[in-house]
């Protein structure tokens, strides 16, 4: 594997909140076009890890590199890197006072400095990608959760990111809405978008992920292809965890 393939490098990330160490040294490399899925019990630092990557939460220790440039300790240049590292949140966080299309346009206008016409065209193109073009003029409060999440994916896509971080993108959605969001994400993965996804959707993990990282107690406990983690007898932790989900669902 060529080193140039590595778009994102995460080195030894540590983070504590109030004396509790949430991340205790997490490292991994992400190749261009790869989808990595993070699975694990709640409170094991998965979301914090994503936020450490784009410095929404500055890590206590460790470094992040995007395309060979250091994201950590980058000062005001962090705003440049954040354009290149898209993020999709569990609760969408659409800008409540703006229509769907203006949600997508805003950063194009303010951060990228596009003209209004350019930004509008780009925003509509991204909304089309996620099947929300017909809802362009609607406000977030008028959208279903699934629709809102698709708009927020379009908003991240509009910045032409090198990688998109998904922080439990379907955890606030019912199964039907979950499906429509996962369909969009599958399409992105197929089109070569690099994605890091924190999720509890095992079906998505198994069908889309190039690699699954099972996190527990602030470290990556198991790491490998979905097939390997599910079938190789050397790996037990993730199977235990999923087993508990499955047995709960069959009750």
């Amino acid at each position: 594997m060529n080193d140039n393939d590595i778009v994102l490098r995460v080195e030894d990330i540590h983070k504590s909140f109030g004396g509790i160490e949430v991340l205790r040294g997490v490292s991994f490399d992400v190749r261009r076009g790869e989808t990595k899925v993070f699975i694990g019990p709640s409170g094991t630092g998965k979301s914090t890890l994503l936020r450490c990557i784009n410095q929404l939460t500055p890590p206590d220790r460790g470094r992040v590199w995007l395309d060979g440039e250091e994201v950590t300790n980058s000062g005001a240049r962090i705003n440049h890197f954040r354009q290149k590292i898209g993020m999709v949140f569990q609760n969408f966080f659409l800008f409540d006072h703006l229509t769907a299309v203006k949600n997508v346009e805003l950063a194009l206008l303010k951060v990228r400095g596009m003209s209004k016409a350019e930004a509008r065209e780009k925003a509509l193109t991204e909304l089309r990608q996620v099947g929300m073009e017909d809802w362009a003029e609607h406000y977030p409060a008028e959208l279903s959760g699934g629709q809102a999440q698709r708009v927020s994916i379009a908003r991240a896509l509009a910045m032409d990111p090198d990688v998109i971080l998904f922080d439990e993108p379907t955890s606030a959605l019912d199964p039907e809405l979950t499906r429509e969001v996962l369909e969009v994400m599958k399409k992105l993965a197929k089109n070569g978008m690099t994605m890091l996804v924190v999720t509890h959707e095992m079906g998505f993990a198994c069908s889309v992920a190039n690699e699954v990282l099972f996190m527990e107690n602030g470290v990556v406990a198991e790491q490998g292809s979905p097939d390997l983690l599910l079938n190789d007898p050397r790996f037990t932790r993730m199977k235990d965890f999923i087993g508990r989900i499955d047995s709960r669902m069959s009750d």
Partner: protein
Amino acid sequence: MDQAVFLFDILLPALMQGLVITLQLIACSAPFGLALGIAVAVGRQYGHPAISWLCRTYVFLIKGTPLLLLLFILYFGLPSVGITLTAFMASILGFILCNGAYNAEYIRGALISIKEGQMVAARSLGMTRWQAIRSVILPQALRRAIPGLSNEFIYLIKYSSLAYMITVIELSGAGKLVATKYFTYTESFAAVGIVYLVLVSITTIAVNILEKRVAVPGTVRATPSAQL
């Protein structure tokens, strides 16, 4: 003297002259009071600790002292340190300082009510803190602050009468002059009261229209909570 002659030839012309001054006072104070309120609220909420402290102290001082005292200091006090303001200028300055401090508190309340996710999402797209405040946080917060701000605007209409205490003959002052000269306290002050009522009514209607126009679709509660 004929009642009609008093009313139309003496009282109303005097009150209209006073009203023009009152409207000038309001028009010169309100926009700057709003701007000051926004700046102070943002400075206190998002500014550097020193700026935040400065904003908090300013609000504390204004909230803690009578406006009349501020006007006396500005008009009668400042000349002793070499700053002489006209009574009109001193009034406007006092009103802006007072209006700004109270507006700041209404706006700060609205800023606090905007969920953190809005800022997080804006920053995650590469916006600076300032861009996020300007384009994402403030537009939402100001909408929520409208009821409070309109309240403060209505107060401004009424406390503009304090300018009379530093010799600006505005609406209340004009009424007072007519009342004492013609010994018609009840009629004169009732008429002054009616003019204020009209001003406040116009404001209330204008604010209602404004609130409807800037409301974000889908967020206006169709059912008033009293019906729940």
